[in-house]
């Protein structure tokens, strides 16, 4: 399939990022009902769903080139956004293989992988046409790549990636490429166990969500990836909302008014998938980020109205945890104009095939 990339758009500075109509219609809107609360909302990551973003295990869209460039800028300024503990080398190769195999199979116009064999020691040739890369290397020999295999392949992928090592009936975040995160720090979390890195999440601990999720993930099967959606909001279409760069974006929260909220306030949806890796037995956790402004979302009448209702009824602890406190009233005032109070059908589908 051909994708019309937008290589010049930016996620900082002049924030020239924009969604095409097609990108808005395929946005993975996360709210099936008018109220939101945490749940263990995990389902099999099959090649289907209410949005086109689910059609391929690793979705590539019109923002691919621009997102890869934004990642490179962030890494140039802060190389610590990519960290891999030394015992994770097998998991690095697992990740490279998984991404190269899926991207080349699902987007043959844009990516290709030629293998002389499947085992470690075989020569592989990888071609990434959108980024203009051709690389021949020995699978299993990190010295034949320009950087370690996990960094190499995740520099060429949209979304953040963490790898969890499984041992002692627990998961440890022992590797990550994190440049488009919703205000969490890999530098802080690297090496932590599942319960440690989920410590700050409010309300969910009391209901046992994390105990159940951990037990479930420890049994995750090879060949049966799962997915969930998570969400927050971001001012301006900015990927790098990290604690490390907070001085650059934190004050933007004070810039929102009922008049500019449609342009400034973005719903940030993470398509999180979980994959058992074959050689390392680790779990790969890709966090694919989609951004849409309130302007974008309100062009789908169901979504504009539903977002108004979800945000109006969000528990105060979640408002605080997601960092919405400062600008939520302005966003709600803007969204209220798009909610006529009619009953909305259950489900996340847009319900329209063209935009008004």
């Amino acid at each position: 399939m051909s994708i019309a990339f937008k290589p010049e758009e930016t996620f900082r500075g002049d924030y020239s990022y924009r969604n095409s109509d097609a990108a808005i219609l395929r946005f993975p809107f996360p709210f099936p009902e008018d109220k939101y609360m945490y749940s263990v909302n995990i389902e099999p990551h099959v090649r289907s769903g209410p949005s086109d973003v689910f059609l391929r295990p690793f979705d590539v869209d019109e923002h691919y080139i621009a997102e890869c460039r934004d990642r490179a800028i962030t890494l140039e300024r802060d190389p610590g956004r990519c960290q891999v503990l030394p015992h994770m080398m097998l998991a690095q190769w697992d990740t490279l293989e998984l991404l190269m195999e899926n991207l080349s199979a699902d987007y043959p116009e844009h990516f290709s992988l030629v293998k002389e064999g499947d085992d470690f020691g075989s020569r592989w040739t990888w071609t990434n046409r959108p980024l203009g890369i051709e690389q021949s290397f020995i699978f299993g020999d990190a010295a034949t790549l320009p950087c370690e295999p996990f960094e190499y392949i995740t520099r060429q992928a949209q979304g953040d990636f963490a790898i969890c090592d499984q041992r002692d009936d627990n998961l440890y975040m022992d590797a990550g490429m994190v440049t488009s995160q919703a205000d969490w720090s890999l530098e802080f979390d690297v090496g932590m166990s599942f319960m440690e890195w989920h410590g700050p999440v409010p309300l969910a601990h009391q209901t046992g969500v994390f105990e159940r999720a951990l037990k479930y993930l420890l049994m995750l099967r090879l060949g049966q990836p799962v997915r969930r959606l998570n969400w927050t909001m971001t001012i301006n279409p900015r990927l790098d909302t990290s604690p490390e760069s907070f001085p650059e974006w934190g004050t933007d929260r004070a810039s929102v008014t009922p008049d500019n909220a449609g342009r400034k306030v973005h719903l940030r949806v993470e398509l999180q998938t979980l994959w058992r890796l074959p050689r390392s037995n680790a779990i790969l956790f890709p966090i694919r980020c989609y951004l849409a402004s309130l302007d974008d979302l309100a062009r789908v009448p169901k979504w504009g109205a539903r977002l108004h209702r979800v945000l109006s009824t969000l528990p105060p602890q979640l408002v605080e945890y997601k960092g919405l406190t400062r600008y939520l009233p302005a966003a709600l005032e803007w969204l209220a104009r798009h909610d006529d109070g009619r009953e909305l059908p259950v489900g996340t589908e847009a319900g329209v095939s063209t935009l008004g």
Partner: protein
Amino acid sequence: MIGDTLLLQVAAVTDIAPGLRHLRLVAADGGKLPPAAAGAHVQFVLEGAARTWRNAYSLVSRPGARDAWEIIVRRVPTSRGGSAFIHEQIKVGDRLVAGWPGNLFAPVRIARHHLMIAGGIGITPFLSYLAEFGFTGAGHALHVCCREGEKDVFGPWLGNSPAVAFHWDADGHRLDIPALLASQPAGTHLYVCGPAAMNDEVMAAAAAAGWPASHVHCEHFGSALSGGDPFRAFLARSGIEVDVAEDESLLDAIERAGVAAPCLCRGGACGVCVTPLLEGEAEHRDHFLSAEERAAGRLIMPCVSRARAGRLVLDL
């Protein structure tokens, strides 16, 4: 790399020793198999004339192999029949349904050193460990306890590795487990796979020597005794009464009755088949339920556990 089951074809059958059969399996469609990790196992559906077995075996092929998988099956005299089926019925060209690889016994890669102790056919998961450590360069040692005559059987997998030592039941050749454990460097992880009595002995020796539980790993599955006295079970939600014969597991009987029960390891280790027990007293043989859960008597693992007396009623 998404899938659930695979159709395999037997490419080669080799009897490598009396009672030990080696199978080489390829994808029936000629395609590639999913890669698997050191310590991985695969569950095979064995379609006999009168009944079906689902047995899990460790892969002894090199980790990451996609051209073929290999297993070694010991014929177990007291088995439920699956190993006998493989020894008597399987021939080149036969097709088998198999699940994707699972792994309940992966090496711990933060270990400073890997110490492996195998009893007999319990060597199989360590054959893939050796291949991984050979590639990564991780420090390791394998001690194999077997009959003297069996020590050359695994030569093709072991080469002349100085990290492998054999022990057998004769003066001067027995494994001194406490002495071995006492001589290990700090940061060593211990792995044991063998008959239940040997596993217990090694685990007890490690505990007595002060090893932290997080550094001691035991592959139970496959070693659990699954037969016993026949009994009856009633599946309350399905409304079906099943007879569990002496040579089959409760899970086998449930599946034979046409009820799909979730399962993975079929050896009482993984916890996937845990089922609410509404009535009856279970004889727990699993390694998953806690002492408190066993005492409460509300859960059972039908892959290995049976009725202590009388009839069981399951919420299934």
